[in-house]
């Protein structure tokens, strides 16, 4: 009995198939036509039930005959599966960031998510990487190499970009600027986390969790060690696949949470 989870994000689409363990997982770019991309991704695959989450969930689910679940629940379920003692999930994705507090039985107890703007999200880092002329996956390394943090005053992506441009013009080192940018995001996510309340173990998920500088800064500010899964991007897709299994077996959810 194979189930599938699809997490259609703003930047990438994540797919997981699951029976008793994760059988397969894949991450592709979302592109301009997420429906076609998702169809290509699922065609020829063997699964009985699909649950779709992420921004594109309502667009994709009807065509692929999947159920819909919010990414907040998907990340909660996915993180609990990977770490049964998980108390909090911090997720920084392409265009949103969220902090999810779990109840003892693994349900979503409380959460915060950014509203409209890209401040503190992967998109913010991506735009700043562009401005600093480095690849997104090199931005974290650049920041870690810095000797000095420059304070970035604006968290608004548009304003921060012009702030960065003027810092470059002032002759500041790209590494120091990069560290300042990471620090700004880490401060924002920390404020959000404090608002929700933090319970250990804290699992750091989403594409931005691959950024070691961010991981270290957030951990330092919260005074905890965060756990980063081997593939932090697919946590939501795992949660979706697990929920699909649950629908399939029509069993109580506790059974699938190990």
């Amino acid at each position, binding site marked *: 009995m194979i189930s599938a989870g699809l997490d259609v994000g703003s930047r990438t689409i994540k797919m997981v198939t699951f029976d008793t363990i994760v059988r397969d997982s894949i991450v592709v770019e979302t592109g301009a036509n997420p429906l076609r991309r998702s169809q290509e991704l699922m065609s020829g695959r063997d699964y009985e039930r699909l649950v779709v989450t992420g921004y594109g969930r*309502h667009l994709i689910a009807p065509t692929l005959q999947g159920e*819909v679940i*919010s*990414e*907040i*629940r998907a990340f909660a379920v996915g993180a609990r599966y990977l770490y049964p003692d998980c108390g909090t999930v911090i997720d920084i994705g392409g265009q949103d960031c969220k902090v999810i507090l779990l109840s003892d039985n693994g*349900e979503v107890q409380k*959460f915060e*998510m950014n*509203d409209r703007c890209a401040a503190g999200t992967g998109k913010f880092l991506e735009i700043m990487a562009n401005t600093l002329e480095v690849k997104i996956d090199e931005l974290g390394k650049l920041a870690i190499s810095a000797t000095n943090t420059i304070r970035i005053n604006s968290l608004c992506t548009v304003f921060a970009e012009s702030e960065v441009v003027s810092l470059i013009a002032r002759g500041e080192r790209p590494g120091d600027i990069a560290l300042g940018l990471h620090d700004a995001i880490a401060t924002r996510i920390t404020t959000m986390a404090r608002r929700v309340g933090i319970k250990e173990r804290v699992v750091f998920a989403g594409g931005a969790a691959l950024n070691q500088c961010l991981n270290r800064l957030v951990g330092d500010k919260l005074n905890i060690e965060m756990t980063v899964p081997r593939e932090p991007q697919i946590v939501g897709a795992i949660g979706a696949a697990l929920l699909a299994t649950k629908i399939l077996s029509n069993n109580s959810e506790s059974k699938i949470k190990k």
Partner: protein
Amino acid sequence: MANDNVQMWTELNIDLKSHDMLLNALGPIFQEVYLSQKNRPAGMGFYDFVVGDIHGIRVKELREHAKNGGKVVATYCLFVPEELVWAADAIPVGLCAGTQFSIPMAEEVLPRNTCALIKSSFGFRLGRVCPYVQASHLIVGETTCDGKKKMFELLNQYQPVYVMEVPNKKTERSRQLWHGEVLAFKDVIEKLTGNKITAEKLGQAIDLVNARRLALQRLYNLRKNRPVPISGKDALLATQVSFYDDAKRDTQMLNALCDELDKRVAAGQGVAPAKAPRILISGSPMAIPNWKLHHIIESAGAMVVCEESCTGTRLFSDLVKPTRPNLDEQLKAIADRYMNIHCACFTPNDERPDDVVRLAKEYQADGVIHYNLQFCHTYANEAYKMEKRLEKEGIPLLRIETDYSDEDAGQLRTRIEAFLEMIKK
């Protein structure tokens, strides 16, 4: 009739081109948000008709009234005591301020970081796209927030504006100030209309407005039933229309709607399954045609069962206490009633969380969504106390800050769906 309307709008100095765009935009939105709902009460037909001719028939009535020498008094806030307007044979109209359409116009003048409601209302006047504003002889503002207070100064350059001073505290001195404001308002209205407000006239006006409040109470009480007999969107629309329809007709229409809902309740019929999550919304007002949050919530399978807001319970939960036909007593009763609105403009305003806790129980709400317009600092600040209080009571809360635009619809849908997943039993 359409041509009559165009002629009327021309006479009112409406910017016809812009106004056409506004009305053309409203149609499809109303279709999507309202007419696509299933199992609506037949009594909503009246409200559909009103929205279908939103700048037509009612404006025509106001114009007829004006042609016969009557005055039209436009307001933006629950604090303006409409009894005094009716008692002087003038007609009060609660102006709408609920659309993104007029916001870019307002931003030519107002600071961008002003709430959508203020910008929308100002834009209507600046862009000359609202016949209700154009048809009014006096706009009555109030000091419930700094943004509005300063906007009224600017609005006064275009049209006569009178501002009532709403106090910020609930002390005895504040009550006295407010009582004085009510007396002063009486003079303003008498001067505007040339009519003397008598105890007899004021008594009739108190009864007229109380009757509408009772009809709204009846409607909201029906929403306490499970399954709920009317959608939150429909109830909100009926409430919004109450702001500018004729009070007597509105009372009749509300009661007719309630008669129908009584039958639904007796038959155990609802607009949604009994197990649909029930949501109480608390916070900033939702002026017509702001149906954004209700639409997202109800499209996700939940039902809005109550609004603790100025376009909700605060509009009608208190009546003006009946008094002897004596002007002093009546004016005191009016001042007392209006002073008891639990608006976030007061400090402190601890009655409001009490209200929300009580309403959540009465309406069997599974969760509360605290809603504030972006840049509405009073409600945004109260959200924190509300959160702490509801946490103590074990009532789940989701805080939403938004405006009239659709750019955050995706994020809102995610957060609301996650909230519903969280509270589903």
